[in-house]
């Protein structure tokens, strides 16, 4: 009996020391991580805005893939939206930001936080990856199947089809959302 308590107490001590040291490291690194994330979001928004004025974030909570949007205005008129949309990735959610015109055309897009496989799904973070989608919508199909891609593009997503389908479907939803919002 005494032996069990002694063993348990030792394990508890080890866990307590580990927890305290993790708490200290967290206290040091947390503010830096939050600031870095905010800076990254800001940089992404600036890039997506194409020089137009970025409005306030409007949160959307209707259970759909779209979680919010920033209107882009030119001399007071809404000409496009930056839409926050979540796609289904290979591992966890794909957080996307996409600038979409009020007619539903993808102007640009960027993949933010995700847990895709390095070297495969993670390649979607590169700016060149999104070229498959930019300019699509408003009359043309935003691809979400391999058969809708040019041969070279279809080759380049080999090994990461799920990431591609997730992004394609999410951008389709975002495009529809932008059309529904219209110019207001």
């Amino acid at each position, binding site marked *: 009996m005494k032996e069990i308590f002694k063993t348990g107490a030792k394990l508890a001590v080890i866990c307590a020391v580990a927890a305290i040291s993790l708490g200290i490291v967290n206290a040091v*690194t947390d503010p830096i991580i939050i600031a870095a994330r905010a800076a990254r979001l800001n940089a992404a928004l600036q890039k997506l805005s194409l020089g137009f004025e970025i409005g306030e974030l409007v949160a959307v909570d209707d259970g759909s893939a779209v979680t919010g949007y920033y209107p882009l205005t030119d001399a007071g008129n809404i000409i496009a939206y930056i839409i926050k949309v979540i796609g289904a990735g290979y*591992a966890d959610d794909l957080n996307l930001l996409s600038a979409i015109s009020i007619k539903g055309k993808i102007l640009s897009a960027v993949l933010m936080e995700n847990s895709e*496989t390095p070297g495969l799904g*993670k390649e979607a973070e590169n700016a060149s990856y999104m070229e498959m989608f930019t300019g699509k919508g408003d009359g043309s199909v935003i691809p979400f199947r391999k058969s809708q891609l040019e041969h070279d593009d279809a080759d380049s997503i*080999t090994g990461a089809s799920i990431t591609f389908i997730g992004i394609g479907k999410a951008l389709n939803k975002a495009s529809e959302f932008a059309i529904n919002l219209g110019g207001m």
Partner: protein
Amino acid sequence: MLKDFTKGIIKENPVFIIVLGLCPALGVSTKVVNSIGMGAGVIFVLLGSNIFVSLLKDFIPEKIRIPSYIVIIASFVTVVEMVMEAFIPALYDSLGVFVPLIVVNCIILGRAEAFANKNTVKSSILDALGMGIGFTLALMLISLVREVFGLGTITLFPIGNFSGVIEIPGISNAPVRVFGLAAGALLVMGFLKALFNWVGELRRVK
């Protein structure tokens, strides 16, 4: 004493000879830069866990040694994850899910169980460094082969004007993509293991 250090590099190389920690080894070895980052993470965690396991070997009762080792290892991995996200976010992004996976990397638990809990702190440090460097070199070798053939590039850290990417003419416009995929990882691993076995055999004959 020096043997504790050098054995991990070739003679008891964790990847090619002991064949431990293959899941992260094959997963991240798509680019050279990822291997270096993963290797650095593993060296740090291995060093920390070996030191603490060795220090606490008389304190930790036999019955609860595995849970205790796991707590120690998991703490170091979490520290690595938080520090990496705060100070080297680019590397953190590209290593993704593999950083938390260091917890279940068999090399680390394996060295705690097979070496650190029987040896002095000094030997354990040398063992951790040797094994960690051996793991890193093995990963770099696998990823060099995979990246050169699979993408036609060699990706290192960007320094100043140098973007960090070396393109290899002739391969980069028509790479053998299978090398970058899971099947290529296993193929490359298999051939390199065969090479190591062959070299080992030659040494024994001598």
